[in-house]
């Protein structure tokens, strides 16, 4: 059996290695997980500074739990997902920041300005539409299409069957399309059809 490089090891194995004092394991886990946690938080809060804080806090909780983590108990990514979801809920309950911290993020100069603005307008419309959906439908849609989780992973996180997830997604898409009808006409999507 060929030996694995550290980058090929699964999250739980790397976490166990970290708990035994291997800094390389922490580096790989940081690079592998932090961007996902940040993206998950951003898609819910639409604020980069808050999303960074939450990603950092979630990773801190991961380091703390490392010595006690039991591989067979739960999937690490599922546990982390729930940590971020809870932190986002807590953040939403707090009073919203005002002023500069809510200013829009600077546009990436490497992207064409028009294309970037189009993406931002669509993203903004999407987030608003998701907020109008029943909570569980929106949750399933975010996990499936923004966080790119599989249906079994969503089922584990939501503690429902895979069939229930498929049903939530189907109903959610129909409702979302209804909510976005005006924006679909106004903002278009034909450039995505290749």
């Amino acid at each position, binding site marked *: 059996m060929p030996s694995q490089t550290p980058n090929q090891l699964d999250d739980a194995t790397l976490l166990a290695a970290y708990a035994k004092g291997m800094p390389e394991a922490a580096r790989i886990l940081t690079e592998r997980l932090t961007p996902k946690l940040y993206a998950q938080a951003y898609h819910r809060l639409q604020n*980069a500074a808050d999303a960074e804080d939450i990603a950092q806090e979630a990773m801190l909780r991961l380091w703390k739990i*490392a010595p006690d983590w039991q591989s067979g108990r739960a999937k690490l990514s599922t546990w982390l997902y729930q940590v971020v979801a809870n932190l986002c809920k807590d953040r939403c309950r707090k009073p919203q920041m005002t002023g500069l911290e809510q200013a829009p993020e600077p546009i990436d100069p490497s992207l064409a300005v028009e294309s970037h603005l189009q993406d931002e307008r669509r993203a903004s419309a*999407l987030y608003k539409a998701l907020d109008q959906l029943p909570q569980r439908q929106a949750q399933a849609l975010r996990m499936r299409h923004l966080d790119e989780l599989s249906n079994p992973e969503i089922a584990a996180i939501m503690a429902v069957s895979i069939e229930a997830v498929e049903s939530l997604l189907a109903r959610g898409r129909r409702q979302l399309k209804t909510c976005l009808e005006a924006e679909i006409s106004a903002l278009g999507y034909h450039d995505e059809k290749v």
Partner: protein
Amino acid sequence: MKKFEDQNHEDLEAFFLSAQRALPAPSDQLRERVLQNAQALMAMQGAETSDSTGSDIRFLGGLSDFWSDFWPGLGGFKGWASLAVIAGLSFQFGGVAPEVETQIYDMILGQNELGLEGSDPFEDLYLAYLEG
């Protein structure tokens, strides 16, 4: 990867793709902060692990525990000092100065003071034994 199995939702897919593309990149400091936390906690947890499982340290700690129980059981410093004095006096009386032992013996019996040197209450019995 085709995320939308239903072709009627291609328009929705465009919106989700836009949301992913509009995601601002995290700052460089985020990675540094996360790694700093990891290293700080690793140092703390490593120190705790060493205290609880390091074999050498555990052995020394065991000795320390042994002495901490054993020493008071012997009476501590006072107990050891008393033992040393007794041992010294015993040595002195037993081997080095027999004349001191005789003097003490005489003092106890008071025979020198009474002028009864050589008197022994069992002397008569002893002489009778010698004489058969």
